[in-house]
């Protein structure tokens, strides 16, 4: 083990380039900033995860096992705000995007390294503000901040929570901006658009959403905060304002935000599937353009969150039609991934298990989205546990599986060490089983009509709720296992070498962990992505 440590440190790389807390907090190295994000989003995930576990324990009893309704409301609001804005949205872009975008295109760093560090600080300021809000006094508006509840009727820390999200939004915008400029301007010689790994296409599409959507939710939440401070009524019916306008502006961002979470995972899955079946991707251009198509169409469908909101039914019909449109590129991706396995050389190391888990869960989550795009059916299941089940299949089943897949795939590159593959496979299986047990019953609950966000429910729903809670405990164990062995591997894991998976891509051509400048000299690209035949 000690020899391993000697091996890694015998040469200069980004981790041993400098030591001390200052070398981390003032770094402009994209790889170190990625680590800063990795640590901070893990902390936020733990906070949000504890809230989730408490929610599920509470719901074992129809009358609620632990909390008063008011406390329960604060708990699910905290879970939603932290998981959505401080874990899922930054997760893959801020950690793996930061680490990989420059390496995959053969650049030394992102286009604006200082801006990149600034993004992390902005994110932390927003995060601290929100943590303050949820821990000292709490927020009970839900992550959706619906008016006039949030502006006039609740007495909790709405202002600091809304400002926290507002501030964190700029972190997301600047990260997206950095990626788009980097992908446009910093590609190594020979790295044409159609030679780029699909992860980069996905990151590019994600960045478009971050750039064009986030400012709208920022100004909207700023208006909510102002309305609370000054009691002016932009969304207040008492002054003639319209609360439904708030929903339009909010969902204009917050629906595409779902694709900020899922698109990067789709990019990761494209990398994993090709690597572990030793094959080029089936239908490269279809997979690449479907990412961009998803990003664009995602901006046209927000009204399906408002089918029963009092929105005009004609607008509802338009939004319903457009919502179906977004299903097509998603379907194209799933079929192409499946076809990539055909005649491949498929191996089942841990990252591949996560990728296959992603495809399964995303398929189930995506298909249940059809129910919610269908006006007549949505009328029944809207705002019920069906919706909760659906978006957890996408955001936890999909985005989280992709995140863990990425973590296991690039961990040797990031740390230079391997983790125990057996444990990793076990964790993947436990997570897959726990996840389905947790969230599948929620579809049934929703069909039966159990509303979301309630602390007390009719006793006939108890069986399914208990199943869901049981699943949640398995899921929690599943998430804890990687935490243990990954930390263990940082010190005791075997040395990985530059390319432990036999993967293609520029990031694998440099040592693990990579040197500060990524490449000894600027690489020249001569072949397409996923050239596994060569």
């Amino acid at each position: 083990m000690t020899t391993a440590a000697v091996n890694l440190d015998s040469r200069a790389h980004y981790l041993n380039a400098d030591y001390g807390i200052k070398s981390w907090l003032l770094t402009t190295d994209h790889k170190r900033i990625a680590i800063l994000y990795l640590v901070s989003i893990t902390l936020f995930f733990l906070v949000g995860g504890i809230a989730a576990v408490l929610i599920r324990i509470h719901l074992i009893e129809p009358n609620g096992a632990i909390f008063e309704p008011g406390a329960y409301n604060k708990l699910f609001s905290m879970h939603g705000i932290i998981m959505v804005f401080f874990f899922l949205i930054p997760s893959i872009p801020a950690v793996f995007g930061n680490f990989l975008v420059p390496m995959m295109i053969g650049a030394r760093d992102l286009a604006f390294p200082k801006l990149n560090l600034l993004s992390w600080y902005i994110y932390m300021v927003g995060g601290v503000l929100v943590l303050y809000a949820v821990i000292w006094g709490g927020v009970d508006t839900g992550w959706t901040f619906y008016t006039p509840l949030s502006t006039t009727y609740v007495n909790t820390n709405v202002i600091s929570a809304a400002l926290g999200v507002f501030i964190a939004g700029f972190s997301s915008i600047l990260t997206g901006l950095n990626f788009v400029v980097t992908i446009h301007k910093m590609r190594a010689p020979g790295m044409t658009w159609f030679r780029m790994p699909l992860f980069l296409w996905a990151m590019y599409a994600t960045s478009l959403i971050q750039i064009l959507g986030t400012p709208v939710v920022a100004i909207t939440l700023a208006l909510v905060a102002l309305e609370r401070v000054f009691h002016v009524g932009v969304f207040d019916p008492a002054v003639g304002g319209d609360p439904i306008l708030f929903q339009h502006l909010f969902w204009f961002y917050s629906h595409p935000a779902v694709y900020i979470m899922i698109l990067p995972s789709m990019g990761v899955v494209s990398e994993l599937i090709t690597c572990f079946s030793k094959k080029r991707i089936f239908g490269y251009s279809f997979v690449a353009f479907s990412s961009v198509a998803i990003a664009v169409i995602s901006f046209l469908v927000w009204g399906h969150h408002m089918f029963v909101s009092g929105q005009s039914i004609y607008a509802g019909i338009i939004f319903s039609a457009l919502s179906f449109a977004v299903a097509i590129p998603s379907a194209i991706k799933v079929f192409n991934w499946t076809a990539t396995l055909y005649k491949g050389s498929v191996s089942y190391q841990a990252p591949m298990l996560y990728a296959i888990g992603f495809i399964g869960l995303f398929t189930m989550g995506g298909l249940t989205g059809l129910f919610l795009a269908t006006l007549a059916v949505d009328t029944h299941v809207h705002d019920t546990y069906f919706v909760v089940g659906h978006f957890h299949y996408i955001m936890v089943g999909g985005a989280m599986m992709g995140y863990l897949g990425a973590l296991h795939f690039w961990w040797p590159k990031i740390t230079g060490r391997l983790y125990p593959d057996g444990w990793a496979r076990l964790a993947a299986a436990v997570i897959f089983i726990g996840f389905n047990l947790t969230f599948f019953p929620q579809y049934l609950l929703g069909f039966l009509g159990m509303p979301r966000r309630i602390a007390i429910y009719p006793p006939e729903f108890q069986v399914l709720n208990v199943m869901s809670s049981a699943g949640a405990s398995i899921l929690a164990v599943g998430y804890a296992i990687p935490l243990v062995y990954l930390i263990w591997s940082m010190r005791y894991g075997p040395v990985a070498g530059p390319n432990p998976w036999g993967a293609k891509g520029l990031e694998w051509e440099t040592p693990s962990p990579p040197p500060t400048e990524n490449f000894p000299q600027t690489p020249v690209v001569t072949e397409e992505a996923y050239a596994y035949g060569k």
Partner: protein
Amino acid sequence: MADSHAASALAHQFEDLEQQHDAASLGMWIFLATEVMFFGGLFAGYTIYRNLYPPGFAAGSHMLNVTIGAINTAVLICSSLTMALAVRAAQMGKKNSLVAFLLLTIALGLAFVLIKLTLEWRHDYWEGFAPGLNFTFAGPNAKSLELFFCFYFLMTGVHALHMVVGVGVLGVLLVQAGKGRFGPDRFNAVETAGLYWHFVDIVWIFLFPLLYLIGGRY
């Protein structure tokens, strides 16, 4: 001399100055796209309410002083000109005229904000047109008038905030220009700040008719 100057101007992640220049201006254009959407939220709300309450919005608009609005528009257009000239001076390496034009731009920007603050906002406040602070109007369209003034203060306020940030940025550039930091090889900062400044001008070009000229003055 020119070579060493160029080398120090090039950040380590870029291959050459052209790449660096393109990246900087692309970055700023993308940032401006996000600004369009940031103001876009306000414009969307404005569009909805103006069409729901045409009389209230017209009445509110008539409470504003067109002359001051028009003068301020002219002030901003002047500042855009001086900013464009400042960029030109930087491109050509004329240090003194760069400093002069930056100073002029800052002065015009401050003039705009001061006119806004003293002649308009203060006046509107004392007249009782400031929703949430001092709103005393009680005419037939009081509610929709209040909504108009909400948007008036929000939009002009966010715009003025952008002006103040712009003035701050130009201040930093002014100090650097005084030290002779800019030249034909190195004017990205001035150019991107100029893009931002012109964008803020464009926002006002739309705010002026949308806020001051509703419903006709005939």
